[in-house]
């Protein structure tokens, strides 16, 4: 059931949350206001909306009928890089990426509309999170740190601007984030001692609007570098605050050259998106020496906490702790482990873990939980408002960390080796941090992101290549399909032509799942009037 739409003229730069959404049927066009309230037939940003909850209001697929979920189409990229991006769905076209490549695919047929390749570039090709979209233009980061702007209708390039210097050791993987007339991008690079930053760029011209540095310039005495800004953040339009996580300090495993907390590495920061000014910061790992970025999704949730309504921010962080903050001021509400951790002396009164000096990397090695990959990593968690559960792919694990003087004070400055780990989907009650249910997903770990829906389904994957639908209430498997490779991205969902789709990827293939055409659910309505238990 679509809401009626009518065109309205919006003055440039003046957007109100109540504005109606001009929506052309004939072009690849995304008004930034759509990002505030995405329609059912779109997924216009990395998280779908700005909250990071990755929760769909669509209810056509339910616990009762998901057993019949089947393949609508698959798109094969015919190349070996694994898809790690979250696709965008705008005006019936899906956009997704691997390093140096963007595909535009017709979401109805699964056939290619266009394919863009960036020329072979230096810089780490570890992955690419996807594109951002503003009006008719896409925004894409390259391994050699260029922001490329393309025409969404055909993938032709408008311009590119350099965001960082790959020769210094930076590379970029982030999906650019679009807020009003700002394209916000982050940088990566842990093998050198480099300053991390966020940059806001003009969507029309590519000119820099502002830059926020997470750490001081390299060479500042007794000071850290690092704080890379790997993953797209979240945004609260009513507070006008942009939330972003920052990465670990450099040198990575040697903390001696950088005594103190090493601000603002391993932090959740709130910035004004129009000016880039820091409004508040909360440090998830003061003086980290284990490579535990705090770049996991800062999920925005409005709800009750200890009887009081709160605007919250939640992060299941790489260092093994689950954080609930007040997102108006960054104050801690809850800090609790969500898996085995052995590196702290407890939590301080500000809600920050206190690192145990005896668990810093040492010449003869220290046993550390979790491993370097962390208790979770870049894949997205999901918050389900119906159950109050924060659902995350966790990786209980152990490793040994080494550092000695010969390893120096530059870049990695040490060595770490994972020993053992497994994958578990955990449903965390945000009010207490208690794990309400967990679902094992394989020795070694999974790596799949999580999507929840209003009908009570959790979509994710295991470490063996199975795409899974679980009951959000108890974690039991209701559907699975063997896709041949473990999911390394996060699922999305949208409605098109009266049919709800779940889109997942694994290996180099994009899969679209839906109930069969003949199913009675599909001939009924999509978003709310359908009965479910």
């Amino acid at each position, binding site marked *: 059931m679509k809401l009626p739409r009518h065109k309205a003229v919006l003055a440039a730069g003046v957007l109100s949350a109540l504005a109606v959404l001009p929506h052309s049927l004939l072009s690849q066009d995304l008004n930034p206001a759509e990002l505030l309230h995405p329609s059912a037939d779109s997924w216009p940003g990395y998280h779908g909306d700005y909250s990071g909850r990755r929760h769909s209001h669509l209810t056509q697929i339910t616990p009762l009928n998901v057993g019949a979920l089947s393949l609508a189409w698959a798109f094969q990229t015919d190349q*070996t890089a*694994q898809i790690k991006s979250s696709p965008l769905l705008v005006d019936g076209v899906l956009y997704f990426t691997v390093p140096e490549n963007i595909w535009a695919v017709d979401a109805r047929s699964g056939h290619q509309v266009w394919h863009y390749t960036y020329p072979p570039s*230096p*810089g*780490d*090709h*570890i992955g690419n999170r996807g594109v951002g979209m503003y009006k008719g233009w896409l925004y894409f980061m390259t*391994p050699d740190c260029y922001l490329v702007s393309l025409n969404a209708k055909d993938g032709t390039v408008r311009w590119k601007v350099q965001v960082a210097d790959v020769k210094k050791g930076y590379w970029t993987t982030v999906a650019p984030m679009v807020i009003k007339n700002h394209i916000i991008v982050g940088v990566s690079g*842990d*093998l050198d001692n480099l300053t991390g930053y966020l940059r806001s760029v003009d969507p029309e011209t590519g000119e820099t609007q502002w830059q926020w540095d997470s750490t001081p310039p390299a060479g500042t005495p007794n000071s850290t570098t690092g704080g890379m800004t790997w993953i797209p953040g979240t945004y609260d339009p009513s507070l006008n605050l942009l939330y972003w996580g920052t990465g670990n300090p450099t040198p990575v*495993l040697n903390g001696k050259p950088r005594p103190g907390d090493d601000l603002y590495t391993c932090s959740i920061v709130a910035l004004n998106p129009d000016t880039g000014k820091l409004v508040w910061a909360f440090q998830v790992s003061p003086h980290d020496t284990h*490579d535990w970025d705090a770049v996991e999704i800062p999920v925005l949730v409005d709800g009750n906490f200890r009887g009081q309504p709160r605007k919250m921010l939640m992060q299941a962080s790489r260092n093994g702790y689950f954080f609930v903050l007040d997102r108006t001021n960054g104050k801690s509400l809850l800090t609790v482990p969500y898996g*085995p951790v*052995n590196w702290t002396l407890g939590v301080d009164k500000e809600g920050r873990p206190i690192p145990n000096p*005896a668990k810093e990397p*040492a*010449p*003869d*090695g*220290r*046993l550390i*939980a979790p*491993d*370097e*990959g962390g208790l979770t990593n870049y894949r997205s968690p999901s918050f389900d408002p119906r159950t109050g559960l924060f659902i995350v792919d966790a990786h209980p694990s*152990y490793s*040994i960390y*080494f550092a*000695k*003087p*010969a*390893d*120096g004070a530059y*870049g*990695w400055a*040490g*060595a*770490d*080796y*994972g*020993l*053992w780990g497994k994958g578990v989907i955990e449903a965390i009650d945000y009010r207490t941090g208690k794990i309400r249910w967990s679902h*094992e997903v*394989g020795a*070694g770990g999974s790596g799949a992101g999580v999507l929840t829906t209003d009908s009570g389904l959790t979509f994710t994957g*295991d470490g*063996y290549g*199975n795409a899974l639908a679980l009951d959000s209430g108890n974690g039991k*498997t209701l559907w*699975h399909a063997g896709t041949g490779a473990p999911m390394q991205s996060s699922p999305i969902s949208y409605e098109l032509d009266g049919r709800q789709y779940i889109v997942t990827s694994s290996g180099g293939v994009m899969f679209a799942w839906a109930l069969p055409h003949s199913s009675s659910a599909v001939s009924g309505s999509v978003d709310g009037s359908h009965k479910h238990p």
Partner: protein
Amino acid sequence: MNDQQITDIVRSGRGRMPGFPKLGQDELSALLQYLSTTNAPAEAPSGNSSVASSSLSDAGAALFRQNCAFCHGRDAQGGETGPDLTQSRLVRRDVGGNRISEVVRNGRPEKKMPAFHFSNQEIYSLVAFIHEQQAKAASRPGGRRGVEAADLQTGNVAAGRRYFNGAGNCASCHSPTGDLAGVASRYEGLQLEEQMLYPRDVKSRVTVTLPSGKKIAGTVAYLDEFNVALRDADGNYHSWAIAKVKYKLDAPVNAHADLFGRYTDDDIHNLMAYLQTLR
């Protein structure tokens, strides 16, 4: 001069140069590699070969940076979850890429290394770079980066033996004169410590009971939430949907994982000291 000729001279000596008859095979291979990658104009048949090999390894360095450095470090000395390739036995034994290419092309899925479908020329360039890095690392006088066996000698043998027989409960499955006899000759340094803490290649066993009541046992070939597969004593592969059968897993290796929450770092170093006496 070919490798055999060099080997003969190194082993027997020549003129005033002494012989080194006891030089181990691994060290000899490393020496041969180093000699083959050094620019030595008097030895090279033409100036071109050393120039060609250095530009090949330059190309390998660039490819390595893009695709491998994230885990194996920019200098191949590892540490970022990927092993130090310059201390790798597989790399030392590699000749012209025969072993390295297999790992690069197939990956190591159980260790999360992806497969890379590089062209032959790209593989050669990577191999040249990796061998060059290994030679460079070996030639460094002291204080080299990365974990060496000498770093891991901070434990106490007697305390390690006590832990083995006591709190660690290792003796319930292992014996220093039985399965662990000579373990420190099979593994050394970091590899020994990693195997001690969690032996990755160990296969668990499973017994499957069919609806008829018949039992089949073997080593686990595959196990997820939906399917179980085994290889029986004759090496035959069988698989079943878990919904159709009952199965019982026998995974003594889990005892290693159970210890992680109980070890102190001293326990680990002491155990390492004790195990290294089992040559």
